[in-house]
């Protein structure tokens, strides 16, 4: 029997006992549907994290700080007083300082093998932000490194090439500062105040060019976003009164490396940085935990779906056993006519695989429809606060993967009845005396 005829026969045999086949397909459908939805949930959430947090940095960059003895653990050190470090600068988190990088350090980092370029991150601590003599609000400054993106509610991101002072406000600042709407804020001038080393307060005016959306993990949080020109001016104002050789202190530096670097390459680079006394942290290091937790949850959900599929697999075994029983004589006849056992086995296991294919394909299609509908409803109601989140997203590769997995499970389930059919003795099958 030709392979194509074998497949054709298996497909047409599937529909011979319609009710039974439909019930079996239904049980597989439930498993495949659940699996598609849960994996869609994982894809959706992880996509969201990737999209919104890819703002945190490009994948070919890492943040480098100077390694301190209790680095990374603000609670370390027990009650003992920490030794004074003249190079310590605020890390932007209250109570936490990092040892500042000096221009010499930057040069050292630049010299490390694998480092393409270094962007030193200056620490700017403005006092307040104010619009039109209104209330003064505390503001912190965030900055985007090249390759970062932020989700804008209105306007555009500050242009680093512009010579004018440009700023993007977080959405939360719009109304308190006295603007009617996001659009209203665009083009207005706000005042930023900053105190220098000798306690003199400087005020600098900047134009609002954009309003940033507060996403689950916005790269700048509720920080205002400023362009290079404004950064330079604010830093100069802040450094007034500091001797020139001490002015250039950086809290961290962004190191760019080869975008094609493998995980091992990055690890090696981190090691070289560590040898030189620096700590490198990539975006993956920062996001790793979040995605790991989500992957863990999705894995548990998937496990439930697999359990449903296993139950469905027994349904296939049952259906095909009945089918083999009913068709005993037909099997005997085919064997008497010279059909080999292998072909008989193939016929029944293909039938199981086809049932698996039908169940999983229907399950996947309906899951895509239901998931897409559900996430669009949710994004307007329950999850309206998380713009850009598609709760259940589908990626073609994982859908194909699910269908193949279910077909594999169905095939395995089909092997038992198929083996029984293949073993059937034509004489016993045809006996009627």
């Amino acid at each position, binding site marked *: 029997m030709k392979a194509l005829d074998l497949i054709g026969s298996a497909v047409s045999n599937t529909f011979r006992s319609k009710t039974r086949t439909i019930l079996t397909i239904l049980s597989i459908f439930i498993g495949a549907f659940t699996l598609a939805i849960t994996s869609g949930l994982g894809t959706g959430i992880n996509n969201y994290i990737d999209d919104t947090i890819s703002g945190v940095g490009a994948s070919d960059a890492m943040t480098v700080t100077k390694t301190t003895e209790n680095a990374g653990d603000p609670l370390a050190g027990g009650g003992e007083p920490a030794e004074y470090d003249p190079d310590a600068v605020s890390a932007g988190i209250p109570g936490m300082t990092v040892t500042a990088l000096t221009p010499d350090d930057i040069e050292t980092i630049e010299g490390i093998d694998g480092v393409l370029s270094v962007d030193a991150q200056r620490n700017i601590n403005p006092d307040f932000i104010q619009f039109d003599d209104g209330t003064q609000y505390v503001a912190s400054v965030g900055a985007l490194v090249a390759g970062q993106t932020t989700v804008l509610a209105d306007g555009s991101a500050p242009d680093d090439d512009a010579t004018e002072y440009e700023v993007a406000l977080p959405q939360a600042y719009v109304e308190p500062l006295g603007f009617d709407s996001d659009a209203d804020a665009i083009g207005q001038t706000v005042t930023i105040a900053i105190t220098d080393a000798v306690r003199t307060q400087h005020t600098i005016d900047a134009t609002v060019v954009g309003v940033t959306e507060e996403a689950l993990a916005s790269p700048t949080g509720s920080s205002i976003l400023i362009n290079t020109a404004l950064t330079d001016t604010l830093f100069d104002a802040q450094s007034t009164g500091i001797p020139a050789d001490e002015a250039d202190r950086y809290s961290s530096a962004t190191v760019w490396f080869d975008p094609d670097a493998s995980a091992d390459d990055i690890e090696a680079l981190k090691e070289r940085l560590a040898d030189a006394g620096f700590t490198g942290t990539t975006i993956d290091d920062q996001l790793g935990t979040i995605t790991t937790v989500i992957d863990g949850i999705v894995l548990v959900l998937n496990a439930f779906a697999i359990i449903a599929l296993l139950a469905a697999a027994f349904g296939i075994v049952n259906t095909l056993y009945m089918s083999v029983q009913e068709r005993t004589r037909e099997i005997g*006849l085919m064997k*008497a006519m010279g059909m080999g056992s292998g072909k008989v086995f193939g016929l029944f296991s293909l039938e199981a695989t086809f049932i698996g294919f039908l169940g999983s394909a229907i399950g996947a299609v309906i899951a895509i429809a239901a998931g897409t509908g559900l996430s669009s409803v949710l994004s307007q109601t329950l999850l309206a606060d998380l713009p850009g989140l598609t709760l259940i997203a589908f990626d073609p590769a994982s859908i194909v993967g699910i269908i193949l997995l279910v077909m594999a499970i169905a095939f395995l389930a089909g092997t038992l009845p198929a083996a029984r059919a293949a073993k059937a003795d034509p004489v016993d099958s045809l006996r009627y005396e």
Partner: protein
Amino acid sequence: MSIPIILADDVHKSYGRGQTRFDALKGVSFAISEGESIAILGKSGSGKSTLMHIMALLDAPSSGRIKLENVDTRTLKGRRLNRTRNKTFGFVFQQFFLIPNASVLDNVTLPLKIAGVGAAERKRRGMAALEQLELADKAKNKAINLSGGQKQRVVIARALVNNPRIIFADEPTGNLDSKTGAVVEDILFELNREHGITLIVVTHDEDLAARCDRQLRIRDGLLIDDTTEVAA
């Protein structure tokens, strides 16, 4: 003398062992020439069906040999055995063994499908076989919707479709009334006479057996009578 198409040499067949051992065949020997029509006669339980199964290579003898055109069937294994069954034999069973929900044409072309014949060629040969049995107009009907006589004619068409050398007919008229039974008998004997297909009929119907060239009578696993009559 030409080589017999089937030669049985001291064929034994037993089932079970020890206390439950049952000897279905206790040493049967005979030869069948190509183009003969043979009736295997015997009561229920006499071993005649076992003998047919062994001749049709559906079962192996416990001892003794079956030679198919001088080829010891013990040497046929796997794919070769399946090919031999497919090319050499056609089966007509009392119970028809049609696939009820498949079309008449699909039922008839099943042996060709198993042999791996292409779809177009299958249809052509299937229709030719149905034509021969005056069933061409029923080709698209479901097998389940046919009358008994029509079903048995479909079964004969199926047995014919791959031009077998030997047709085994196991109680071919058992499920039919005498009128349709007679029609089916006529068809079988016509095939035997005009196409030279060796016909082996297993039956307990004396009238049917009488129409055959030779009768092999089986009782309790032994061949008790081998009569050669003058061809009718």
